Each structure stands twice: as structure tokens, then as C-alpha cells.
């Protein structure tokens, strides 16, 4: 065998690939489900927190700031291990999927809250005053006047952050979630061949390259138009 043949045999072995691609495909489905659940719940929760924060109740805001700070300072993997291995000891059994979903949702919510809050603050005070003077209530001003302008500013940083957190679904492999990386490493161990791992990596790249491009497009589309 030439060196090239040895290489393709170890990394792109068609026989091994034919056996294991359905498993990887199953992993792709799980990764997508996990990612979708995290993105929807995380952004919704983060937005809700930012809205609550704009009412400026001191005690509640203190809690929100603590929540956002702690979840932005902690590595998600630490939290995942803490929930997955810690909670069963006090009587809660959490599946790996639930643990990863919960942690990533909370992390995304923390970042979303900070970004949306910065957006709300960046809207000119005059907008508040003008809206209130037309007779809109505080809540109406927030919903109809402030948020539409704030959200526009938050789209690029929020998109990038969401992409970064979605990639963390790969952490699920550590707690036995059957997502792409887990299926790929298991298949690699069974087959004694690196091809499934390569296929898994390719699956990730195929999933995320379009998303990275989408993020870049969003960045340009919503960029500050400088005069």
C-alpha cells in the first residue's frame, strides 16, 4: 500500500463509512433538535429578562445581573457536569440531553439579556419622552417604540453569540447525548478506524459553515450606516 492509500484507508474508508453513516445521520438529527431547542428557549428567556430589567425594580434587577454575570463567567461544561452528576444525589435524575439543553439555554439567555439590555439603553432618551407624551403607557412605549429600535442593534452580536453557543451542543458527548460527536467517537472506537470521526467533523462543518456565512451576512446587513 502506498502512503496515500494507507491514509485514505484510515480516514476515508468507504466500507466503514457505508456502515456508520446512518449513525452519524442520527447524530445530526439530535444535534439539530438540541440546537433548535436551545436557540428558541434561550433567546426567548433572555429577551424576557431584558424586558423585566427595563422596569427597574431594584431587587429583581440585582438578581438578573447576578444571573447574567455568573452564567457568562462559568464554562458551560462545568455547569453541565454539575447538573448531570450532582443533581441525582439530591433526587433529581436529569438526562444528558436535558442537562445540556438547560445549561446552554441559561447561558444563551444570560448573553441575550446583556445584549438586548445594552440595545435598550442605547435608544435615545428622547424616544421615551416623546412616546410617553403621546399618551402611551410605559409598557406600550417599551413594546411599540423602544424594542423595535433596540432589537435592530442587537441582531449582529446576538447572531454571533447564538452561533458560538450552538456549537457547544458538542459538549453533549461528555454526558452521553447521542449527538454527532458522540456517535462519531463511538463508531470510531467500534470500527478502529478514524473515518466516522472524519465524517462527523465534515457533518459539523457542513452544518455550521452556512450558519457562519449567515452570521456574516447579518453583520453586514445590519451594520451601522456611517455617514
Amino acid at each position, binding site marked *: 500500500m502506498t502512503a496515500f492509500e494507507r*491514509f485514505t484507508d*484510515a*480516514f476515508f474508508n468507504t466500507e466503514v463509512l457505508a456502515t456508520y453513516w446512518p449513525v452519524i445521520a442520527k447524530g445530526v438529527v439530535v444535534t439539530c433538535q438540541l440546537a433548535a431547542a436551545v436557540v428558541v428557549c434561550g433567546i426567548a428567556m433572555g429577551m424576557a429578562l431584558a424586558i423585566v430589567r427595563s422596569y427597574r425594580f431594584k431587587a429583581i434587577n440585582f438578581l438578573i445581573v447576578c444571573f*447574567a*454575570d*455568573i452564567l*457568562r*463567567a*462559568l*464554562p*458551560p*461544561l*462545568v*455547569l453541565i*457536569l*454539575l447538573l448531570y*452528576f*450532582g443533581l441525582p*444525589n*439530591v*433526587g433529581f435524575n436529569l438526562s444528558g440531553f436535558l442537562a445540556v439543553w438547560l445549561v446552554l439555554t441559561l447561558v444563551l439567555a444570560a448573553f441575550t439579556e*446583556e445584549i438586548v*439590555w*445594552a*440595545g435598550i*439603553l*442605547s435608544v435615545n432618551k428622547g424616544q421615551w419622552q416623546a412616546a410617553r407624551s403621546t399618551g402611551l403607557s410605559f409598557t406600550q412605549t417599551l413594546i411599540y417604540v423602544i424594542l423595535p429600535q433596540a432589537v435592530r442593534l442587537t441582531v449582529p452580536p446576538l447572531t454571533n453569540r447564538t452561533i*458560538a453557543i450552538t*456549537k*457547544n*451542543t*458538542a*459538549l453533549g*458527548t*461528555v454526558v452521553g447525548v447521542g449527538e*454527532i*460527536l458522540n456517535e462519531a*467517537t463511538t463508531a*470510531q472506537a467500534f470500527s478502529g*478506524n*478514524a473515518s466516522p*470521526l*472524519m465524517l*462527523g*467533523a465534515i457533518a*459539523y*462543518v457542513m452544518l*455550521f*459553515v452556512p*450558519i*457562519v*456565512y449567515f452570521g456574516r451576512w447579518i453583520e453586514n446587513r445590519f451594520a451601522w450606516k456611517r455617514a
Partner: protein
Amino acid sequence: MEQFLTQFFNVSLMLEAWPIVSRGLLMTLLLCVVVVPLGFAGGLMVALLGTVEHRWVRWPLVVYVDFFRAIPPLVLLIVIHSGLPFAGIRFSPFASVCLAFFLNNSAYYGEILRAGIDSIGKGQVDAARSTGLNALQAQIYVVLPQAIRNVLPDLVSNTVEVVKLTSLASVVAFHELLYSAEMARSITYNASPIVMAAGLYILMLWPVVRMLSRFEHRISS
């Protein structure tokens, strides 16, 4: 409640685990000291190469940056650590982590620095060149100092992410903070060591996160 406290905040267990966990903390710090400058240097290279307007430089660079931004760092780490041995290339956990982080971080730092360089007017380069500086000197002495100042919050925020990412090294059995805490947990069947590790991460990163928030809000108001 009491059960909760003994399972998560068992102080005597934490004290017992401290020798292991503190060694892990040292390794995490060591890892950061190696990985952050390495990634930053790589990013600087990527950003400077990005100013070269030649398609044989530009296209490979775009592919490089997009590829490593698209692939999750953990996937990269595992491919390097348990995929490459099939090609006869075997790295120690430390070397695998350094290589994976270099590839991933240079793409991220590179993107940020590129945005910084783009924010500096072309006139600056022209003016610098007209004083007799060559292209590289103009970038290093004129453009980069301003560019870095413009994207400083993003650079700091990315560095926080890198420090958090070092916890991934535990997956390839590098004895850093999380790995040590998880080892102590598996010996004691008690989550307190992980809580302690979490506390240490918060202690390291919370001041930076707070500073970043203040900075963002100041810009916007």
C-alpha cells in the same frame, strides 16, 4: 435542604479536595498563559495577511478562518487527539489542546483584529507609506495600535471565552481545574469539588465580565 447543602456545599470535603483542585487551577492558569498569547499571535498573523490583496493569500485565508469558526472546538480537539494517531501522529494532551486552541483562536482573534483594521481609514496607511514606512511597518506602527484600541472590548471578551474553553481540555484528560474537580467528585460521590471549581472560575472571570458590561453600557449611553 440539608441534603442539598451536604451534596453541593460540603466545606470539609472542599478542603480535602483543595490540594488536587488547586493543582488543577495552576494547570488551567498555565494553559491560559500559553494558549492566549499563542492564539493572539496567530490572529495577528491572520489579520495582517488579510491586508494583502492577492487572491492566493486572500482565498486560503477566508477558507481557514471560516473552517475553524465553523467547527466546534471540542470536535477539533478530539479529531486532533484521537483521530490523528491513526495517521501515526500522536500528541500529548497538552500539545493537542495547544494545537486545537491555536487553530480555533487564531481564526477568532483574526476576525476581530481584521474588523479593527477595517475600522481605520485608508488615509492612515497612505500617509504612513508616504513617510517612507513599508507596508508592514505602516500596519505595525500606525494601523494596529489604533485598530487594537477600537476592538479592545471584543478582544477581552474573546479572551474570557478562551479561558472558559480551557475546561474542554478535561475531555482529553489534561489535568486542569475541571478535570481535577471531576476526579475529586468521582472519588467522593459528592458534587462539592465541582462547585468549588465553579467558584474559582467565577472568581477569575467575574471581574472581567463585569468590566465588559460596564464598558458596553458606557458606549451605548
